[in-house]
């Protein structure tokens, strides 16, 4: 057995380039939200270059000259924060950047989601957004790739396509009137997820890029959902012509996942966790570097805080060096 006790420690920031770290520092230099900002007197307000952190319900300013932006509301003529986050000011507009956000999607985003409900001609999918996304029966491919209108018989066997709990990778197709996302899986790239493990990171850490499907050199496939849900799985040949279209809705994992594969998957998963723990943007390059950095440690030691920190540090340095 293997157990260790630690004292809590303050976060130590990763030194080096801030390029891929989430540290926007703009707009903080001239922050003076005290009431007497007009005559420029030094009030007891926020001093330059300090982060102004607020909690929900905290009054940001009682000056009526300011306008309320995102994350704030007005109560008794005061601007009050509605989220926990950092105050951002652009001229007269005050907004609060939340520390923790839900996913806000755009059309064309690749997301990973979990089916939560089977309803009339549709599935509800948890994509870590404010409300469940919707996957219509009409926006999926039928097994075997038959092209036809969905009939009542299809409606009756919806659970044979996707069941509650199933993980899917899909694309945001449209928005509904109430802001819910409509997804589709009408491509062989999309569909049910198998042969691997699920990791959830803050959605802000996954950025939009050319491809969200990656095959790493270590024989592991990674799907980076823009909603912060990540699927790490054993490599399956991705030749779209060779996919058995009858099996797209199968629940069976492939038989030949070796312990080696499992170790690589766990290693990649732990790398992603280590990066997310340090709030580093997650993409295929940095995952590969983190994986290489992790090879010097034993797999079961990778849950240790200091090793996770070391891996993340090494990976960021490697990316910096590569960029010159």
């Amino acid at each position, binding site marked *: *057995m293997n157990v260790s*006790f630690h*004292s809590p*420690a*303050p976060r130590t920031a990763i030194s080096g380039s801030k390029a891929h770290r989430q540290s926007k520092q703009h707009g903080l230099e001239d922050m003076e939200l005290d009431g007497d900002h007009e005559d420029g007197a030094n009030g007891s307000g926020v001093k330059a270059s300090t982060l102004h952190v607020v909690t929900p319900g905290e009054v940001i300013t009682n000056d009526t000259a300011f306008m309320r932006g995102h994350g704030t509301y007005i109560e008794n003529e005061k601007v009050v924060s509605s989220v926990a986050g950092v105050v951002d000011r652009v001229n007269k507009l005050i907004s609060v950047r939340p520390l923790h956000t839900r996913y806000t999607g755009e059309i064309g985003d690749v997301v990973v989601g979990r*089916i939560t409900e089977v309803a009339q001609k549709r599935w509800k999918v948890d994509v870590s957004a404010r409300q469940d996304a919707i996957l219509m029966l009409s926006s999926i491919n039928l097994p075997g790739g038959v092209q036809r209108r969905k009939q009542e018989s299809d409606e009756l066997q919806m659970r044979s396509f996707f069941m509650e709990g199933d993980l899917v990778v899909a694309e945001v197709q449209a928005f509904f009137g109430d802001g819910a996302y409509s997804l589709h899986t009408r491509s062989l790239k999309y569909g049910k997820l198998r042969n691997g493990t699920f990791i959830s990171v803050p959605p802000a850490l996954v950025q939009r890029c050319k491809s969200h499907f990656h095959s790493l050199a270590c024989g592991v496939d990674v799907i980076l959902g823009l909603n912060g849900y990540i699927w790490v799985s054993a490599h399956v040949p991705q030749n779209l012509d060779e996919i058995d279209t009858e099996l797209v809705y199968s629940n069976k994992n492939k038989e030949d996942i070796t312990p080696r594969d499992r170790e690589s998957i766990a290693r990649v998963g*732990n790398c992603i966790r280590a990066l997310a723990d340090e709030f580093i943007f997650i993409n295929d390059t940095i995952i590969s570097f983190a994986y290489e950095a992790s090879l010097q440690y034993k797999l079961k030691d990778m849950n240790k805080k200091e090793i996770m920190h070391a891996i993340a540090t090494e990976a960021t340095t490697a990316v910096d060096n590569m960029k010159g």
Partner: protein
Amino acid sequence: MPSLISPSERDYILKGIECNIRADGRQRPDYREVILETGVISQTSGSARVRLAGGTDVLVSVKADIGPVLVDPETGEGADKGQIICNVECAPSASQQFEGRGADELNNELTQMMTRFLSHNTTTLSTPSSTTPSSTGAPNNNGAGGINLSKLCIIPGEQCWILYVDALVLDYGGNLVDAVFMGTRAAIFDTRIPKTEVQDLGDGNFDFEVLDDAEDTEVVEGREDMPICITLNKIGARHIVDASPLEELCTEAKLVVAVNRSGELCGLQKGQDGGIEPSLLLEMIQFGKTLGQTLIKQLDAKIKAEAEADTIKRQNGQPVVKLGFFAQ
């Protein structure tokens, strides 16, 4: 706390456990890192915060209060005993499932489990079949709970100390029970009860005074013999400790083993609807016992190290700063 899992994930976890590689790279008997701090809430007699690296976050507080003794009307027992009143609450911020009345069942289960394991010899909840009384330890009024309740009595038949043990679950990342009990042990170790002075007023009347001096305090007697819990999750034909939320969803049967520092079984509770074969059950209990002993040893070492560091700081006149909620 996810409530759903896909069949392929379940299969992947099951086979992973079979070949001793869990989804996060741990092996079956591996715990995650535990982050522990005692004395985090100044208003309490003792407190601790325990976090498991995967997210579970539990805050435990112990408050010593004076109240009337609880006498069993039938047996007349309890006149010379203090009380321990446990309460476990899952905050709705820990998981979506805990919102509204969602956590009620879990709160109840954990509260009753803690009451049973800590103050086993109070008459109300004794279930002799599930516990074996400690065979070592001098006077056997400590019961399986370890804590010497007689010591908590101030005036027999009248007043006693009541220890309110409150655990608040702030975040959920699997393996709640173990974290709650580790936190409780740490909080009880941190607890200081003021000394009392009893005066005999004659005619069988007694009065007492609580000494105000912060130096003049007592520790909870019998705290070393308190049990902690090891939760064993049976997945497939194997069992694992410190399950992650997804692993908990694959669990067929769960066995909570309460163990004290001498490796004695202080309590047992089975959860979930799957069955455990008799041979596996014995193996699991044995495994829980050995593991629990090691865990207690390391936990105690950590608690002791922290207490000593605090004492040294106090002696040198330095402020004892607790990071509390300002650390990761």
